[in-house]
């Protein structure tokens, strides 16, 4: 189980056949385990990591937003966090330590969309004490992948 998660976390394109060879387990068992992981929500999905610096497709505008909130009696931060992360504009929501509480990544079609979301939806929420919005300018590295440079490998194609 643990090894299958590790393998898929590194390379989601591994097929059950590939995994069964690497781990010397039969395919049926591997398939069943993966199904279980998917059903129980350990594996949430599979998607390609796109280098937006290179792709010509539409790039959404993103902002990292620091949010200060007042936790609710008996429910802590979960209640207000849920009120916030349910908006589809919010793609990431973390509770963090430090001078603010929630760290959001918010997406919109343009700056106006994001600004409007903050002004009309996020800031007026009961319990939100303040927000600081940082628009994202350039991605250098994401999920372990460097986005701005080519492959760093200069080997000759054959050597002994």
């Amino acid at each position, binding site marked *: 189980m643990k090894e299958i998660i590790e*393998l898929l976390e590194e390379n989601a394109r591994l097929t059950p056949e590939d995994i069964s*060879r*690497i781990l010397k387990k039969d395919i049926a068992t591997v398939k069943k385990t993966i199904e279980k992981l998917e059903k129980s929500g350990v594996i949430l999905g599979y998607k390609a990591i796109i280098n937006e610096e290179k792709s010509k497709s539409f790039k959404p505008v993103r902002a990292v937003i620091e949010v200060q909130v007042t936790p609710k009696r008996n429910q802590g931060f979960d209640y207000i966090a849920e009120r916030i992360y349910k908006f589809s504009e919010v793609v990431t929501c973390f509770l963090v330590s430090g001078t603010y509480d929630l760290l959001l990544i918010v997406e919109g079609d343009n700056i106006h969309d994001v600004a409007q979301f903050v002004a009309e939806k996020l800031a007026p929420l009961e319990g939100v004490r303040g927000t600081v919005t940082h628009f994202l300018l350039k991605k250098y590295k994401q999920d372990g992948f460097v986005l701005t440079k080519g492959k760093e490998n200069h080997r000759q194609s054959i050597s*002994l």
Partner: protein
Amino acid sequence: MKERIADRVNKIEPSGIREFFDLVLGMKDIISLGIGEPDFVTPWHIREAGIYALEEGYTSYTSNQGLPQLRKIISQYIHRRFGVKYDPDDEVLITVGVSEAYDLAIRAVVNPGDEVLVPQPCYVCYYPVSVLAEGKPKYLSTSSTGFKVTPELLTSNISSKTKVLVLNYPNNPTGVTYTREELKSLAKVIKEKNLIVISDEIYAELTYDHGHTSLSSLPGMRSRTVYLNGFSKAFAMTGWRLGFACGPEDIISAMNKIHQYTMLCAPIMSQMAGIEAVLKGDSAVRQMCTEYRRRRDYIVERLKEMGLDFVYPQGAFYVYVNIGKTGLSAREFAIKLLRQKKVAVVPGVAFGPKDDNDRYIRIAYTVDFDTLKKALNRIQEFLRSL
């Protein structure tokens, strides 16, 4: 113009597969399973230490033997990992790769005419470097003993002139390594026959199924073993040209005598990066090792499914595959595979005499998993098309 060149150089055979190399280097868009070095670049923290060394003005010579701090931590590292104690003051020498260390070791101990036993298939430098030292290298064929030297094989090849045995494990090109018990039984013969062993353990960290045993950790072997290791493979540092030799004081000091006149010292910025590698490189080594092991596990299953024979590789990043069934020679196989499927492998004849190696190819799994899978699919298609 041959007479302008020294006899001992003329005696070395030019590599028989030069044209094959040229063919590979001249082709575009191939997948190469012929690369004998890691596909990882040097971990960033180690590169950063090299950059910092340059920034701080570390651009000078070091002592011939190498930076004292590097020798000290290498000595601690070998003790921690392989259980052998070497005195950093006079039993450790920092070299320009295992390549230089091997040359020094051979030149330090071989007199003209002394026999050097070189088990083959093997890494390419052992035989010719012995020729240059005016020794008499003698190949030991391991192809009928699972690519391992056995006590019987060793005994039957020792003569009164035999002085040195060269061992390399995990092995390039076979990936084969030895268990502690196997090494013990070899050590017995080595002691009986009073041989010196040059033990190239450069792939020690890349051992997948059991711990690596250093020959010099066995009783009575430390005094007759020159232990060679380096940064190229374990830390993915081939271009830094950094290695080391550990051994009894008399041999290390003789090696240093040659080293001080021929090389002076290993590059200081590489030595500085080497310090970082040994001190902080453990987790990077472990990560790379896990990745190689997974590829090994995968490739072994695929080759079995293709019905190919090979000896189960337990270390390094190679499999030595018997393609005899195809009726093709190693060279023919490699050229056809390259031309038809754009996959490069190295014909076995690069690693020893034709008689023993013309039925083998070396596959190096130094490419990422998806590329490896694609290459193996192509090899499978190629085999079906024959």
